[in-house]
């Protein structure tokens, strides 16, 4: 049973509809994100998995409307708490950033100003004008497992894991409804990764924000996510629930094969994918590399919702009965 786009549920914090982003260059514009559709609900951890260059970070930056100047949102809607942020001006966007959406970045040492103490970082991120600001800051630090004394030190005096905790505390301090975590564990070792993930999960259970977790580590996503979106070359090719069902898109299967130790990856003809962005819009983005491709894959393939939470962009799949 598949349904086309299901919308309008109250608990949806973030909803992205038909989002397309272009990178405008002098002579041509290159499609970076193509017809992205997904939503993140309150209290869930939505993991977005994809290889480098698939557009994960671009998606994260479009959600907070901080794309670099060369990027242009061509079409679509981004709804945060039901408000389309693509239609509001910069001033009101500033009130949303940090307050309703917080973002945690990949490399904390680069994202903390080297001249600012931890305390001033936290003060800066706090939006309200509360008298008990200091208490709130120590509380936020406590929550991420850091000492209150850490406020007086500078970022470079902390380890990577501690810096990431500071970033989380900064994201947390305004009690946002959604936290975007853009590969927060990529720069960290295995144990610290575990701690950061546990921390994010603990926060999710305690304060119930939605977490939009971007990673290239499918294994990590399978363990921690409540839902997983697989991204490939600017398309979300599948959204599934780990544990409940296996992904069925050929690309998702390959990814899954790598963590299950299968050799599928070697059987694939991994020649250079030569499609340009125009061709990509005309046929399945995975067409060149797909082992199960057919003639009918040579046309635009829409993203189809199977139920309210999962969906796929592939014709071969049994669930995709619509086309």
């Amino acid at each position, binding site marked *: 049973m598949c349904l086309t786009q299901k919308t309008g549920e109250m608990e949806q914090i973030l909803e992205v509809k038909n989002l397309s982003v272009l990178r405008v260059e002098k002579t041509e514009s290159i499609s970076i994100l193509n017809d992205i559709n997904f939503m993140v609900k309150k209290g869930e951890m939505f993991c977005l998995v994809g290889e480098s260059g698939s557009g994960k970070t671009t998606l994260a930056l479009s959600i*907070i409307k*901080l794309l670099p100047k060369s990027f242009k949102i061509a079409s679509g809607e981004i709804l945060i708490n039901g408000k389309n942020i693509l239609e509001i001006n910069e001033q009101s*966007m*500033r*009130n*949303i*950033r*940090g*307050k309703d959406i*917080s*973002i945690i*970045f990949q*490399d904390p040492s*680069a*994202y*903390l*100003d*080297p*001249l*600012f103490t931890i305390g001033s970082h936290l003060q*800066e*991120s706090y*939006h309200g004008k509360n008298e008990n600001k200091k208490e709130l800051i120590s509380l936020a630090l406590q929550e991420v497992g850091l000492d209150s004394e850490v406020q007086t030190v*500078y970022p*470079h005096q902390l380890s990577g894991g501690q810096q990431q905790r500071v*970033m989380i505390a*900064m994201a947390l301090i305004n009690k946002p409804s959604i936290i975007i975590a853009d590969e927060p564990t990529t720069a960290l070792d295995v144990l610290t990764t575990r701690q950061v993930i546990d921390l994010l999960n603990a926060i999710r259970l305690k304060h119930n924000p939605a977490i939009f977790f971007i990673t290239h580590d499918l294994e990590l996503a399978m363990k921690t996510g409540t839902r997983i979106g697989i991204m490939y070359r600017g398309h979300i090719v599948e959204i599934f629930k780990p544990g409940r069902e296996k992904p069925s898109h050929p690309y998702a299967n390959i990814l899954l094969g790598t963590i299950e130790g299968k050799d599928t990856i070697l059987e694939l003809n991994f020649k250079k994918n030569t499609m340009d962005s125009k061709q990509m819009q005309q046929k399945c983005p995975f067409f060149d590399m797909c082992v199960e491709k057919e003639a009918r894959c040579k046309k635009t393939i829409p993203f189809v919702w199977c139920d309210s939470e999962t969906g796929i962009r592939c014709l071969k799949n049994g669930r995709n009965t619509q086309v």
Partner: protein
Amino acid sequence: MRRLLQRLKNHSRPAYFSLWFLLVFYFVSFFADILAPYHFDQQFRNKPYHPPTKIHFFDSGGNFHIRPFVYNTVIDDPVFKTYKQDYSKIYPLKFFVSGKERRIFFFFKTKRYLFGVDQPAGIFLFGTDNYGRDIFSRLLYGGRISLSISLIGVFISFSLGMITGGIAGYFGGIIDQILMRLVEILMVFPSFYLMLSLRAMFPLNLSSIQVYLLIVMILSLIGWAGLARIIRGMVLSIKEEDYVLAARSLGLPHWKILLFHIFPNTFSYSITAITISVPGYIIGEAALSLLGLGIQEPYPSWGNILSSTIGNLRVLGDAPWLLLAGIFIFVVLINFNLLGDALRNVLDPKNW
């Protein structure tokens, strides 16, 4: 502040010494009214080109005096300006002597100076110039003008440079184009001739305070263009840094990002540039005064003390103490450069 000093001390002893040295210099010229034995325009007409006064502890009879003293001097050879000491009477060095009332910065009046001797003897630590004015006193008073011009000038030109460069770099686009073309027009002119022509726009018979302000303005108007360009370049690269993106993702307005995240990160350069450009102002003032366009006599500045020696070759042989102003300029410049170099490292938290 104390931690900063400690860091400076640990990082570089010479720079730490330079800092104290400069502070002493500023302090001394600030309180020139008390510290100088003579007013800057007080003349000893019978003692031109007087060499530095000898200070004695033993009189001609070989008796020791606990209080140092000087002898009066009389001119020996009026052509070559040589002096001989008159051993008949000793003039002991007196501290906190009273004399003509001087005003310290228009507010406080003082009648007492740190030291002096009774007339007709004179205490000329660094000798006298052609009018018989005490060079030591003039150097202290001149330091007040030369050193404060550099500070005020640096302040004005750096505000201009930081604001222009910061706005141009941060907002980019058409604003950047307009501001940078303006800066380039200013930079096209050779700075020295620009300085001269700016000065030529104003009449020569201005009062000393007007000339002072005019020179400050001229010097800072010339200095800011190069800085603005460099700051713009730095801002261009800093605004692409990840922490700026992070600050924007926190919802900070542009002015806060510019003021708190971008400018402080240019300080590693601009603090050094400030300390290194201070000498430029001292030299610029000296150059204007040297050409007679700067601070006018009888008001002293290090530049016009030096300029009084121009075209007067016998000074080199017979009254070399007149060149002391040059040594003062040189010493201050060296110390500013030392300090600036060290400050750059000390102000970067990564070096702590």
